């Protein structure tokens, strides 16, 4: 496990470099949430999920992942590229004209690994439910994973989906909420308080777990526990505590870096804090 985690951390360090470099080169994008979810998504793609980088849209027999908070696209693109879905050098096209790497992810340009467009918030859990229902109809015992932001929980559709998944016992669905407490205009508690998040999901009929989104042992154990709950007739929500901007000291823990790209000097500073483990894309 220890060496396993060491190699996952190496991947995450490279992914964080990719995030910083992509957003800097595009002079736009969302580094904060991307850095905050890096450890989780690294574990999910490189440790947990059964998935095939040769990419088939329908994904029968595979675990599926849907990103609801589409703005953390530089993270997902890096994870997909580093998993072999498309050439790593393509990361240099992020947010540029004629690119498959749109500002917010979409299958419209045919980028492998992306199954649905997201960006307009609150829609990913519904989509994940649809995929999970398909898997049940097909007797496919793999899971559907969805990642959402926390500010995103202010969208009403989230709670429509929450009600549906509990009523229809969609227990092959695991929704992780990036609970960094921050959104564009400031802390959740100043914008619109999320209140008792654990109690909210529980009262909607979900099994609710919590984890530290930067503790690899905790992430692995919690997702494994969530997976083991299939067959118990309840969807699972994981409240994942993270720090926005994790891994770059001047970006960490503040909403300031939600949607701002680092300049050249800031990029140099950020990269000096992140070891190049797998080789930067050219």
């Amino acid at each position, binding site marked *: 496990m220890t060496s396993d985690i060491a190699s996952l951390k190496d991947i995450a360090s490279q992914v964080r470099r990719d995030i910083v470099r992509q957003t800097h080169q595009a002079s736009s994008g969302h580094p904060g949430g991307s850095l905050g979810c890096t450890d989780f998504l690294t574990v999910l793609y490189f440790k947990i999920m059964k998935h095939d980088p040769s990419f088939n849209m*329908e994904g029968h027999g595979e675990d599926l992942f*849907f990103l609801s908070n589409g703005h953390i696209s530089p993270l997902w693109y890096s994870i997909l590229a580093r998993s072999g879905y498309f050439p790593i050098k393509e990361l240099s096209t992020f947010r540029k004209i004629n690119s498959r790497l749109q500002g917010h992810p979409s*299958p419209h340009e045919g980028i492998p690994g992306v199954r649905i*467009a997201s*960006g307009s918030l609150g829609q990913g859990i519904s989509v994940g439910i*649809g995929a999970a*229902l398909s898997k049940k109809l097909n007797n496919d015992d793999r899971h559907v994973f969805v990642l959402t932001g926390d500010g995103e929980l202010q969208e009403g*559709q989230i709670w429509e989906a929450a009600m549906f998944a509990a*009523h229809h016992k969609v227990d092959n669905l695991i929704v992780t909420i990036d609970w960094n407490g921050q959104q564009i205009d400031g802390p959740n508690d100043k914008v619109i308080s999320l209140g008792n998040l654990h109690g909210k999901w529980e009262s909607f009929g979900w099994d609710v777990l919590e984890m530290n989104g930067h503790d690899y042992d905790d992430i692995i154990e919690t997702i494994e526990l969530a997976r083991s709950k299939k067959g118990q007739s309840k969807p699972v929500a994981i409240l994942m505590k993270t720090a926005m901007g994790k891994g770059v000291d001047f970006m960490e823990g503040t909403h300031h870096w939600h949607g701002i790209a680092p300049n050249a000097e800031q990029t140099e500073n950020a990269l000096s804090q992140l070891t190049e483990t797998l080789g930067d894309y050219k």
Partner: protein
Amino acid sequence: MIENINYTEKKSTRDGFGAAMTELGRENPRVVALCADLVGSLKIQKFIDENPERFFQVGVAEANMMGIAAGLATTGKIPFTSTFANFSTGRVYDQIRQSIAYSEKNVKICASHAGLTLGEDGATHQILEDVGMMKMLPGMCVINPADYNQTKAATKAIADYLGPVYLRFGRPNWPVFLPEGNFEIGKAIVMNEGSDLTIVATGHLLWYAVEAAKELEKSGVSVDLINIHTIKPLDEPAILNSVKKTGRCVVAEEHQRFGGLGESIASLLAEKFPAPMAFVAVNDSFGESGKPDELLEKYGLTAKDIVQKSNSLLDK
């Protein structure tokens, strides 16, 4: 010949949808249905009885329904969403735009109770803007069938079509006057050939266009009558061929003039063959409560209105 087009019974277009869903349930295991608490109104109980595992009741949560449909389509199912037209479009426009249209998902958005003929429930439910919203979405196919038989055939045809579709139908019992059988998406149907005037109609108003054409023919006007059931993609050659022959065009639809079929045809003709036009449509107004025939009369959507606008065009 137009005088031979008649009806022997009235049935609702939504019943045509329901009947087709029953057949699709038996014929195509990839077809799944979703409904937002309007099973009785959408006439899909038989599909549900025969395929309970392929039906998903979503409750009064249309946004979630569109997202779930997108997820089902992603993984190879052919989802048919069903609710009223108002809740199938404006209420969930962003979900359709992002999760279905932009994501290129094979979702069939099936919308009943469109237009004024919904009747007594009034303007909150009488959507007259839905065609405009849906036709603006890149890649969205928009179909508005005219009677029970055409709705049934269209419902079956869209299951075999790969891509998002908006299928619009209605509530009232309405003349059944079109033959049963095949439906070709995007292919106009010439109902009568003539040389003086083109009348194009879609949806419920096709029957009134037939009645109007009969009256005009009696008074010596030779009418080219075209049924456009597929508003997008529009059968441009069929319209251009007709208007090149007649030089004028009346468009009849149970929809706002802005954003409707008439606007699509005006845009086509403006570019390819400018010709005088008249529009039988709702003119920038909401509807109200009332009986369907009372409403169609008050808002100027009857056979009489089609005749009147045709005559005024012929005078030009």
